[in-house]
């Protein structure tokens, strides 16, 4: 098992730059998520770590050794592909033993190892079947088996749940996480699904347009997004943005929106001009006595909670409130924003201003 360090990694495909100087560290045994919309460079980053693409510049260190220009076969890494890429002309047993065959492991040892892996994954009964007829879940397990069979330094997973149907995905996500907890193997996992990333990851890197936007634990990223992009990308429904013009000084504990002061964590830097106040829907409460007002436009019932859409002077706001509360369409109500979790962004740069709350959080 290994620690993976990425330093100023860059990849150009002709005139197009897929990854622009990424840097982050994946600690030994971490379940590490590369998250971002399609085309953000996350898969390219993964493929560079695996050795399927060579970086244009920058370093990849696995256990302190620079492998950035080494071929995949010399990196001792395993990978699970999105479409699983099981060798179609081999049966399950041969697929799983194939990585061992390349290393010249004796036959008896291969048989023992394959049996052990099959037992861990619960696929003993399908070992002699051709891979063509397997269900999605079984294919997934065989692909995992092929990855874990030779105890590689790290696992790369490229949207491994993307090809499964929604119901089964949940189940496999749990299985994957359980397998990781048991093997404690460094895992790099690419996904565009923010829920999957939050649910499974120890750490998340959020990428966009080839740039690392933020790097941190799921909770840090959710509570204290470093940029407007991250704030918008993570969370469903997304963070509300109240856009306004104003000034903010270091040491301020509130900003003024349309003449109404709104409390937020103490600012540690100043900004002026176009600003954006970000608030998660669950941190908006409806309160008659609150001075900041909004008109209820719609309400979606979600069982335990409901999402209420309000129009305010600074844009539309969604609030997640208990479904027991009454929200009448057309009524004007007060909005109380939870000060502890508010973020203030500079609209020009898209960056979150440093506050007492997010000061310790990594920025990309």
């Amino acid at each position: 098992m290994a620690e993976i360090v990425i330093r100023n990694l860059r990849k150009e495909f002709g005139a197009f730059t897929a990854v622009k100087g990424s840097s982050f560290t994946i600690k030994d045994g971490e379940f590490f998520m590369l998250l971002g919309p399609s085309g953000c460079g996350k898969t390219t980053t993964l493929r560079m770590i695996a050795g399927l693409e060579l970086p244009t510049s920058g370093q990849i260190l696995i256990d302190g050794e620079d492998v950035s220009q080494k071929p995949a076969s010399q990196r001792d890494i395993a990978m699970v592909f999105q479409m699983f890429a099981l060798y179609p002309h081999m049966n399950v047993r041969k697929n799983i033993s194939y990585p061992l065959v390349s290393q010249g492991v004796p036959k008896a040892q291969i048989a023992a190892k394959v049996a052990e892996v099959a037992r861990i994954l619960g696929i003993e009964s399908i070992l002699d079947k051709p891979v063509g007829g397997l269900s999605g879940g079984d294919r997934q397990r065989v692909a995992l088996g092929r990855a874990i069979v030779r105890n590689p330094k790290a696992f790369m997973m490229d949207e491994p749940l993307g090809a499964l149907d929604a119901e089964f995905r949940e189940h496999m996500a749990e299985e994957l996480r359980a397998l990781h907890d048991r093997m404690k193997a460094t895992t790099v996992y690419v996904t565009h699904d923010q829920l999957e990333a939050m649910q499974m990851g120890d750490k998340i890197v959020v990428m966009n347009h080839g740039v690392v936007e933020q790097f941190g634990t799921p909770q840090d990223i959710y509570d204290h997004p470093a940029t407007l992009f991250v704030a918008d990308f993570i969370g469903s429904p997304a963070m509300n943005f109240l856009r306004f013009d104003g000034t903010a000084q270091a040491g301020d504990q509130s900003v003024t929106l349309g003449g109404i002061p709104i409390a937020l964590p103490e600012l540690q830097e100043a900004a002026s001009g176009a600003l954006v106040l970000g608030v998660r829907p669950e941190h908006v409460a409806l309160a008659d006595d609150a001075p900041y007002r909004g008109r209820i436009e719609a309400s979606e019932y979600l069982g335990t909670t409901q999402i209420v859409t309000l129009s305010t002077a600074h844009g539309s706001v969604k609030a997640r409130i208990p479904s027991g509360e009454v929200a009448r369409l057309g009524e004007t109500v007060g909005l109380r924003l939870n000060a502890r979790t508010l973020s203030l962004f500079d609209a020009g740069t898209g960056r979150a201003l440093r506050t007492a709350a997010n000061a310790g959080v990594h920025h990309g």
Partner: protein
Amino acid sequence: MSAYSATEPSAASKWVAGTLVTLYMVITLLPLAWIISTGFKTGPDSISYPPKVIFSPSIEGYVNLFTDRTRATPEQLATMPPPENFVDEIVQRRGEVITGPSRFGERFLNSVIIGFGSTFLSIFLGTLAAYAFSRFKVPLKDDLLFFILSTRMMPPIAVAIPIFLMYRELGLSDTHLGMILLYTGVNISLAVWLLKGFIDEIPREYEEAALIDGYTRFQAFRKVVLPQAATGIASTAIFCLIFAWNEYAFAVLLTSGTAQTAPPFIPTIIGVGGQDWPAVAAGATLFLLPVMIFTILLRKHLLRGITFGAVRK
């Protein structure tokens, strides 16, 4: 009233289709049947008018095909020992004696060597080139592919004279190597293009999985790509073999002795002093067999191969 089905053809259209297919089959198989049956006729039967459909079969044609004979007078025949086997008997009954084996065997073997040799070489080089074009960044890739295809844009025979002169200078005229190189040159463009299509269809992830599993690029190609390209390789091989096997014009021009293939040789069987149609038909029948057997052996692949791209796996 029977239910209308969008996928199940009606009885009438099935009947029409069946009739058309049968008719087409008869039209295409008739010449073949004619050749095969002529091979088993006697000389007079083969040219009788009206043609004989029912006749007593004879292997005279095949005997003539494989032997060189000379006429003998009745006196000479009388001094000969009694025929040892049925071949001698057939020949002596016509007042001839066998002087030795004909050259058909040799020529047939030449066809086998040159046909299969050039097919192997085309497929070998074609697969490697197609893989490179499919997977790697090749400078001027599109121009190169167009150039490769452009070699097929005129009939090969248009360059017959330059090739004839070149081959004479290089000492390749009437050699097996020369013919193998020539047919490979013609076939390789087809092989590269067809195989590139097949290899493009194989997802790269399979090789990438093998690379990560610790195999080199070449091992991944051999163990993962090749087995999956088998269909494409088989159908391409059939096309290449059919061309090389049947090629006539260059064979006439460039071969006369040691490397002569069967196509230019078969017409010469027709003989001197009398047209030996049964022997020609026997030669043609035997000539048809290898490609037929090869195609039948690979037909499973061929059927999947010629419809490639139509249905996604």
